[in-house]
């Protein structure tokens, strides 16, 4: 040994007592865990990271409204800018770093080919109001993606413009409203189960509907008989998530649709969980009239820290005439036109109108189409199968440690649900979630759906390997056991993240929403 290492050098060994939180450094940094100030604390209004030539002198045509105040926008040089944001990025968990098991969010791998394709100048650098002859390829992307979505869902048409899932819900609900108006019927009630995403009742209320609950059976599904009993001439329709937010397939979906249709209503399906069934089940075969598809879930466009999303809505033959403007139309000669206000004429007279400026989330269409073409019909089917397999594997590996309220109901779909039943006094779902953070995993969706007490909804997705799942299961079992044994350290978790638990109560009581600096504020006055 001494021959090899005559200097006396030894590998470092941590001090037995050295908990990470006890180390105090001059900077507040902990090696690779770097603190970063706000741009307002490190930048200045005179610094810029962009070089411009001098503006040619010109007479102002600003109508005497020149801006004379100090705006107060800090600038940084380019190296400082890159470092600022790179340091901040390292305080984020991300799919690129590890399993992100958020139920109903479908945090799957985001292939970089999709990013590359979206950045081709032919897609990224075209203006939404260019003459249609100069954007045939872009309209081709929209049209090709639309065809895929219609075929995969077995529906009649698709509205491509909604900007996100909730915007898609609104689109579908407005189609239902328009269809009812066309029939001269004033049906006011939409039936929505308690297990629904919060956007469902919010959307229904926004469109002027009254929301009523649909009772669930003890096995976590819609109670068909109770639903049938409530249907009547005041019911506009139902909003049902399938697979539902308890991770179960609604076995009676077709019967539900038939009953709603027989009573003169429409069936809206929240398509947030389409990933579980893509390529294996077509919602159109279940009698669905409208369903939004979160391209950022099933079709892997990046979540980006909270948007942008994209929420095209597939429509049945009954609702298609009411879909929004604009949309693409393919002619036999291959030319594609954009049907908008000026060209709609009498071709789509029942449209409920426009939901957004321009054509929707083109950048997301390009990514989603790239993803779909990569998988093909066979790969997409495998997506559903592997996502369901992964979720069932987690369910069975955990059910002896955590309460799985519907485990006896049969297999789950692409997410497994657990409750906080059996945890000792003072311990709850939040402690398990925060404990997972220290283990290097993002927590699952917590306290949703509302129908399960202390819900933990785990969606591994199909892009996780068995080895990753095994490690996650090991970590979750360990944390769950610590909670069951009442380990006080868990109440203080996370201890190893860039921040400990944050005071959300104080943040809401006295909101500080923008940076304020006395010196700069005075200068502005």
């Amino acid at each position, binding site marked *: 040994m001494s021959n090899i290492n005559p200097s006396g050098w030894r590998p470092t060994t941590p001090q037995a007592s050295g908990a990470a939180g006890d180390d105090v450094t001059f900077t507040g940094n902990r090696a690779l865990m770097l603190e970063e100030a*706000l741009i307002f604390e490190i930048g200045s209004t005179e610094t810029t990271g962009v070089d411009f030539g001098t503006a040619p002198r010109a007479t102002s045509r600003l109508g005497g409204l020149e801006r004379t105040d100090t705006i107060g926008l800090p600038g940084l040089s380019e190296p400082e800018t890159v470092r600022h944001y790179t340091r901040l990025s390292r305080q984020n968990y991300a799919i690129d770093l590890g399993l992100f098991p958020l139920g109903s969010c479908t945090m799957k791998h985001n292939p970089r080919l999709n990013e590359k394709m979206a950045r081709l100048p032919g897609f990224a650098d075209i203006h939404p109001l260019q003459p249609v002859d100069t954007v045939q390829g872009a309209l081709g*992307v929209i049209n090709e993606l639309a065809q895929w979505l219609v075929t995969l869902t077995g529906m009649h048409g698709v509205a491509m413009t909604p900007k996100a899932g909730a915007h898609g819900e609104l689109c579908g609900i407005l189609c239902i409203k328009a269809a009812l108006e066309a029939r001269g019927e004033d049906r006011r009630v939409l039936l929505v189960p308690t297990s629904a995403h919060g956007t469902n009742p919010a959307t229904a209320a926004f469109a002027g509907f009254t929301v009523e609950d649909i009772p669930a059976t003890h096995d976590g599904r819609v109670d068909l008989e109770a639903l049938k009993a409530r249907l009547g001439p005041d019911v506009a329709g139902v909003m049902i998530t399938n697979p539902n937010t308890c991770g179960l*397939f609604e076995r009676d979906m077709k019967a539900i649709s038939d009953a709603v249709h027989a009573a003169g209503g429409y069936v809206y399906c929240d398509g947030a969980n389409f990933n579980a069934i893509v390529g*294996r089940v077509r919602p159109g075969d279940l009698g669905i009239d409208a369903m939004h598809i979160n391209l950022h879930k099933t079709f892997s466009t990046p979540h980006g820290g909270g948007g942008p999303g994209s929420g095209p809505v597939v429509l049945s033959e009954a609702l298609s005439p009411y879909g929004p403007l604009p949309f693409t139309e393919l002619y036999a000669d291959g030319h594609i036109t954009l049907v908008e206000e000026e060209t709609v004429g009498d071709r789509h007279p029942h449209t409920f109108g426009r939901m957004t400026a*321009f054509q929707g989330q083109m950048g997301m269409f390009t990514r989603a189409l790239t993803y779909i073409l990569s998988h093909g019909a066979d790969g997409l089917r495998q997506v559903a199968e592997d996502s369901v397999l992964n979720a069932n594997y987690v369910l069975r590996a955990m059910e002896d440690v955590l309460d799985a309220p519907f485990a006896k109901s049969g297999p789950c779909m692409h997410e497994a649900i657990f409750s906080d039943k059996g945890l000792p006094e003072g311990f709850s779902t939040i402690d398990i979630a925060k404990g997972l953070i220290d283990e290097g995993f993002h927590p699952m969706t917590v306290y949703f759906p509302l129908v399960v007490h202390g819900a933990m909804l785990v969606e591994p997705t199909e892009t996780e390997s068995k080895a990753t799942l095994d490690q996650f299961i090991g970590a979750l079992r360990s944390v769950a056991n610590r909670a069951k044994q009442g380990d006080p350290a868990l109440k203080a978790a996370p201890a190893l993240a860039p921040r400990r638990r944050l005071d959300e109560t104080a943040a809401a009581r006295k909101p500080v929403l923008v940076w304020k600096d006395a010196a700069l504020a005075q200068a502005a006055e």
Partner: protein
Amino acid sequence: MRYLPLTEADRSAMLGVIGAKSIDDLFVDVPAEARLSGPIAGLPLHASELAVERHMTRLAAKNLSAGAAPFFLGCGAYRHHVPASVDHIIQRGEFLTSYTPYQPEIAQGTLQVMFEFQSQIARLLGCDVANASMYDGSTACWEAITMARRVTKRAKAILSGGLHPHYVSVANTMAKYTGDQLVTSLPTLSPTPDTDDLIAQIDDDTSCVVVQYPDILGRIADLSKLAEAAHAKKALLIAVVTEPVALGAIKSPGEMGADIVVGEGQSLGVGLQFGGPYVGLFACSEKLVRQMPGRLCGQTVDAEGKRGFVLTLSTREQHIRREKATSNICTSSVLCALAMSVHMTLLGEKGLRDLAAINHAGASAAADRLAQVKGVDLITPTFFNEFTVKLSKEARPIVRALADKGILAGVSLGRLYPGIADLENGLVVAVTETTTQEDVETLASALEEALA
């Protein structure tokens, strides 16, 4: 399939643990008649990265990209140079592939970006507070109108004729279902916006006046009088900014008394992208904040007293309030907000002012040059980087004819206002730092020829 890590051996082992004979056992709850037995017929099967790239590249090549042509389009989407580091930063996996920051201990990166973005936007628009972004300008505009109704408990909104017609269209669609009454009008090819007409229409039932600044034709009006008139009747003034670079040169709407300022942030950092994704801006005065839609990030401390950031005031939002929420919105446009924020940080105040000055000077020179062309009249005496000319012929066919020659000449008002004879000769021309003098000369010559 390259995105799916499970091997066949993994799958069998996992089925064994689950106690299922085959994958079909896991789909037993799907009614037999709805089960598909194999890949959907008629659809292509999986393809290599190379094959997909080839297909997409072919489609992209069918488009005439702005960078490949003299380019003058604006009207709600603007082409600016985006520094290379912006795109590098938004492609950091930690930003690109993260989720809404519901677990703040491991999302401080996104949360601090949101907080910085809110602060930058509030300052740029001249308001107390801003949210963490909306879908786009048009939906933000509608959300502002409904917010004004909640605040004033009145339902009549007066929309300026200078408001982007798509924004008006979106508001019209939504108002049909919410009971808001909208008073709308068309723009006229006149030197001044419709400020006086708007003031004359404000009454005790008015919830808000909505005005675009600069407006759809590029005109700039002082909003102070309008704000005073609205406030005198206890109505709100909503200002809509579709070109935020302008606020490096002209007064902010907040400074002139706007209560809510919304806008489209696309022109900084985001790019044209054929209309989306973009980033909606939403700012207002402090006293209105609890009526605001959308995500908000706030400053707080952690258990050790360290500064940190969290999503806050979520009792306004759908996941808590459900049918009583201020909006059904469940997301924002964080990655686009990040791009915009990075671009603003690179520019800083000095850079933004320089950029604005270059845009204005370029547009002034272009307006003067085009006005020399026989058959071209400059309509707008005030403008920032976008102005309107009236041609001696209908503009729409001319725009198409010039596109055939590889010139993207601007937005014809016939495209935006079909069937309105008074507007059909109007052409809106935008000029930014990306426009060269040579581009302007090319456009001028082409117009000369087309109008001869």
